[in-house]
């Protein structure tokens, strides 16, 4: 017996129950996506109470010629070479440990996994994949050396040194 209350395409059409089920699931899906976006935004801090990337390394005459000085708190080396002053990140490019200058060997070494670097940051041996990056260094108006830890500069270039 044909059901006259059903439209002709009743089999393919969405009935009321299915419509509301889809509406409900769709709303839940949108709400879930919104919750995921909300959670992601919540978990990502908007304000960080981290030290400024720019570090004041003091007067240049603190660093004698041919010296490598580690600042433990900021994680940078100030190197006073024949060509001038330059700054090197002291954070190992392997897994982020703080490296140390070994004056008796004339190298920079990482205590965690044994990476070794030359005084100019060049890699001697791994596991570090990359050399220690050079950081932008300049003199401010007071004659203090400033280093921007967030900016890498090409190594051994004229502009990467500060001459006093």
């Amino acid at each position, binding site marked *: 017996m044909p059901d006259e209350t059903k439209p002709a395409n009743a089999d393919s059409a969405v009935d009321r129950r299915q419509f509301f089920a889809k509406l409900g699931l769709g709303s839940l899906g949108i709400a879930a996506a919104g919750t995921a976006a909300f959670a992601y935004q919540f*978990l*990502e*801090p908007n304000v*960080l*109470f*981290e030290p400024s990337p720019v570090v004041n390394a003091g007067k240049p005459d603190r660093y004698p010629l041919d010296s490598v000085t580690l600042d433990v708190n900021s994680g940078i080396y100030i190197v006073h070479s024949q060509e001038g002053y330059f700054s090197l990140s002291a954070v190992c490019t*392997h*897994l*982020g*440990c703080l490296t140390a200058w070994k004056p008796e060997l004339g190298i920079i070494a990482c205590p*965690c996994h044994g990476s070794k670097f030359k005084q100019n940051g060049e890699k001697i041996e791994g596991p570090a994949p990359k050399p220690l990056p050079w950081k932008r260094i300049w003199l401010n108006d007071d004659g203090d050396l400033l280093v921007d830890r967030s900016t890498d500069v090409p190594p051994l270039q004229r502009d990467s040194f500060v001459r006093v």
Partner: protein
Amino acid sequence: MAKTIDQHFDTLRETRVWRSIFRSGTGSSTLKRALAIQQNVFLHLFSTKVRTRMLSFSATWYLGTLTLGTFLILVATGIPLMLYYHPSAPQAYADTKDLQFVVSSGLFLRNLHRWSAHTMVFLVFAHMFKVFYRGAYRAPREFNWVIGVILLLMTLLLSYTGYLLPWDQLAYWAITVGSNIASAVPLMGNKIRFLMLGGNAVNANALLRFYVLHCMILPLAAMFFIAIHFWRIRKDGGLYSHASEPTTLQAKNADGATAQEAQ
């Protein structure tokens, strides 16, 4: 005549209060003993009946049960430790030292927590090796193996997050190295590291996040999966016993059939 201890317990089990809590009633019939398991919210996760030989030491070496034991010790010692520990950068290290040298029994609780943590990692691996070499991960228990792998990850994450909390040099550099390993994930590695630490370096945010993960999120998630893990043992036909597996029985029957045909 004086009553034996068992008789005292029987009297206790007959009291109205006891019967209002444990409805299965007294008696040691198979039905009563099964009901005692089935009608208890904690025990109903487990099978009402277990083969006697599966309770022998050689069957499982009790590795799963011992792992649960260390987990319970970790919960029981971890909560009191939380009462003296502030997860803030200026206080965390000093609180750890206070727990060792100032708080009564603090040293005992902290060491018990630490040793249990080490033991739990060892036992989880031992449990998994035992399950693997006995072949107990096979159908119909594959899903419980998957749950087990999730529980292994939970255990390792609990170890890792707990490692930061003393806030000493070892903790700091271990988490620095570990978070840099996380940043090796393709494409989203640095984002994962940033969200994990709540910043660009291991600092106060990282300490707080690891504390919340260690004391709330991961233990709750672990309990959730532990419950499923135990429940699945019952649902998948009890503890694995090679002699009683359907495949073994099938092979046995097939051998019997061929032997009869040969005759």
